[in-house]
């Protein structure tokens, strides 16, 4: 165990409430003043497979899970078979009474009557995990009251009551058996209100904050939680939240709603996005502002629905026939996901283009702790929009040719404005044309936006971020950032100074910003991506004629662990 940090791995059968247990524990820690990060891995099935999550708790902000853990809560033998090698030398394993396993030497085994306690209190077998979390709470020297309140907030009344009892029993059992406080958490900080949420949660919150009122999505792992969350709170926020018959229906409804004037969004994964490709071009041609969330998972095709990857970057950048401006944003953590979702809506409406928010399973479904969002940091920019009454004098031109390429957008229903959207190439009024001069002018108009988009992003957002100032440059985009930041702290301790470049706007690609960064001389440059073919590197080649030779690529569906990055850096540096 490290100072101020505890890592707990909880595993069991699918359907055994493993993630719920992780969340209970993490929230208890957060409310006790710590930070937590939960990564969870589960197969694409409802019961029978093995599910596990790792809860990392720390007195400082944490950015990713760790490979090695201090405690394993094993609700099935599968958990130990798969994960015992992740336990630190003197780690603790919590198992049910009567559980037999050939443990390696040194492991501290806590055999607790999980099932018995559960039966006693009249809980269902799945509730064993509450007993276990009660025990862990005791081990870590945390307050059982905090856990009780967490349980009350998570579950519905009846269930909460039972679970609270069970947790308390576990807690008491630990005390009785001298396990309390044997792995105490220390050094908490309570400076600001903290929340724990996933990338999906952050996107949903950002969308609500941005005034999104229409959301239609067909369920697809790992994006479905956005649908579930929004569906749940739709009434409180006057949203229309819909699960249509398919992704094709979803995106077309979203485009319809956006044309009508609602901020509208859909969310899916690569397979569903594949079905949205034709309509993406429709949004572009009709200059209808839509936001599309694409949460990546390993492909091709069905691939591995519940795992993580960054293999869709080029696809999203080039999807749909013909050429048109689009914006693709890749947040690296939940906090960024929130703010960038707000930006996504502003950019979409201001420039009347489709905007893609590109996440991945690891970002979308891992939980991290962040400060509550400061509301001042976002504002609504709808661009030039005309409602109620058009007073422009002449006939309204939906696609007026302007200097910036942006044509003031009237919403249907506006008096004196006839708003004609058209997927065929069209004139300024939106009437179909094939006239060579008009066509060229319209293509040029659409592309003129690109320069203004770049400026806007530079002014109001962050196309590229850097962290640290070392001689070894690490280059990434999206969720690997978390593990890299962790690795950087460790490398620092080992005397290796690193610097991270995180590309956030993948399109328009921040060429100038990156050129500046790459102009400096580095000892080594290492590319880190969760894919096979180094897609960001292909963009660096294309835009900067830069080919990063040292690559750390991972494409087995798993996110990076900090240790992998440390190893790579060490091997390159020495």
């Amino acid at each position, binding site marked *: 165990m490290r100072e101020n940090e505890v890592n707990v791995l909880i595993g069991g059968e699918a359907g055994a409430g493993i993630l719920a247990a992780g969340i209970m524990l993490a929230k208890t820690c957060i409310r006790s003043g710590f930070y937590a990060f939960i990564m969870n891995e589960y197969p694409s099935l409802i019961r029978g497979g093995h599910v596990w999550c790792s809860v990392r708790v720390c007195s400082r902000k944490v950015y990713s899970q760790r490979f090695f853990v201090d405690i394993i809560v094993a609700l099935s033998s599968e958990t130990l078979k798969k994960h015992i090698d992740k336990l630190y030398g003197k780690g603790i394993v919590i198992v049910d009474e009567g559980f037999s396993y050939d443990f390696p030497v040194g492991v501290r085994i806590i055999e607790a009557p999980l099932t018995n306690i559960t039966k006693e209190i009249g809980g269902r077998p799945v509730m064993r995990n509450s007993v276990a979390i009660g025990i862990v709470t005791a081990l870590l020297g945390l307050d059982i009251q905090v856990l009780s309140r967490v349980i009350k907030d998570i579950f519905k009344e009846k269930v909460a009551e039972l679970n609270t009892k069970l947790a308390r029993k576990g807690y008491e059992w630990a005390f009785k058996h001298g396990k309390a406080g044997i792995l105490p958490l220390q050094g908490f900080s309570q400076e600001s*209100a903290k929340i*724990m949420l996933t990338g999906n949660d952050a996107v949903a919150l950002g969308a609500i904050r*941005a005034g999104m009122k229409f959301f239609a999505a067909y369920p697809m792992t790992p994006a479905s939680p956005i649908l579930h969350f929004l569906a749940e709170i739709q009434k409180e926020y006057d949203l229309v939240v819909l699960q249509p018959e398919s992704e094709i229906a*979803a995106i077309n409804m979203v485009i319809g709603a956006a044309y009508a*004037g609602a901020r509208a969004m859909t969310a899916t994964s690569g397979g569903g996005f594949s079905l949205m490709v034709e309509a993406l071009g*429709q949004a572009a041609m009709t200059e209808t502002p839509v936001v599309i969330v694409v949460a990546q998972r390993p492909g091709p095709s069905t691939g591995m629905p519940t795992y993580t990857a960054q293999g869709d970057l080029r696809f999203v950048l080039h999807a749909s026939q013909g050429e048109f401006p689009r914006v693709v944003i890749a947040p690296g953590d939940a906090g960024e996901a929130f703010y960038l979702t707000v930006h996504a809506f502003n950019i979409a409406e201001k420039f009347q283009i489709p905007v893609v928010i590109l996440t991945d399973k690891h970002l979308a479904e891992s939980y991290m702790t962040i400060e509550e969002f400061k509301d001042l940091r976002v504002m609504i920019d709808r661009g030039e929009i005309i409602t109620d009454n058009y007073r422009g004098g002449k006939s309204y031109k939906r696609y007026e040719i302007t200097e910036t390429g942006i044509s003031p957008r009237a919403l249907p*229903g506006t008096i004196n404005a006839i708003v004609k959207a*058209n997927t065929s190439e069209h004139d300024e009024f939106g009437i179909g044309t094939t006239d060579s001069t008009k066509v060229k002018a319209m293509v040029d108009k659409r592309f003129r936006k690109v320069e203004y988009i770049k400026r806007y992003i530079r002014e109001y957002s962050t196309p590229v971020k850097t962290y640290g100032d070392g001689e070894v440059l690490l280059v990434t985009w999206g969720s690997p950032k978390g593990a890299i930041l962790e690795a950087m702290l460790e490398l620092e301790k080992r005397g290796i100074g690193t610097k991270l470049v995180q590309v956030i706007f993948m399109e328009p690609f921040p060429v100038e910003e990156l050129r500046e960064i790459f102009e400096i001389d580095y000892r080594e440059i290492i590319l880190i991506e969760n894919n096979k073919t180094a897609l960001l590197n292909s963009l660096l080649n294309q835009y900067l004629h830069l080919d990063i030779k040292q690559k750390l690529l991972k494409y087995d569906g798993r996110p990076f662990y900090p240790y992998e990055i440390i190893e790579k850096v060490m091997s390159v540096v020495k």
Partner: protein
Amino acid sequence: MNLQTFVEKTWCPGCGNYAILSAFISAIKELEIKPEKIVIVSGIGCHGRISDYINVNSFHTIHGRVIPLATGIKLANPELVVVGFSGDGDTYSIGLGHLPHAARRNIDITLIVHNNQVFGLTTGQYTPTSPKGFKSRSTPHGSLEEPLNPLLLALASGATFVARGFAGEVSHLKTLIKEAIKHKGFAIIDVLQPCVTYYNTYQYYRQKVYKLENHDPTDLNQAIKKAMEWNDKIPIGILYKIRKETLDEHVKKPLIRIPETGVDIKNLYRRFR
């Protein structure tokens, strides 16, 4: 107020689309709907050009997506009157996956299908409603498939307003359109629309169609029977019409305004603490 644009029409002379255009224009005139309150959504095909010709808000969408696009518009702003113009290729071939769902959702839009039984714009290939044996560029030896019965399908899917019109009966068609627009709920009018170039059915249908009379449009069994009538006699008129809750009735006001400083989400923090 001119409901037609100045765009020159490029349908073949005599095409059934002209009748649909004029029936629709008369209908909205008579219903006295303000042009800014209507949105028409048109599909891809000869029929799709109609949006260039009518001087109201319009969205000329991609092939087969009139229904979801119109659904999105209606839900985002239920104050708009939303009418879709689609083709038999557009709605019954590539877009068929949307029709049953719109019907059972009972979204308050009107869908006018220009059913000429061919893909007109792509030079006359057969469609799901072409008769078996139909010879076209893609079926030069005759199509091998039984045609689809779109009205039966709409009824089987729970549509609350199901009608058939004929481009050779403009004023009857106008009445149907008016009724369909007035109907609160999903309304489909399948319009027999002769394509003079690839499948000129004027004579054929003139001889066969008859206007429904003494028909109880609230009786589903009756409607199904009438929908299955496709031999010597082909009924036109309203086959079915009932009032049911619509999807858009759940939307209280247009979703088009946002407070400048964004929406307050503080209440939501609780669940993440």
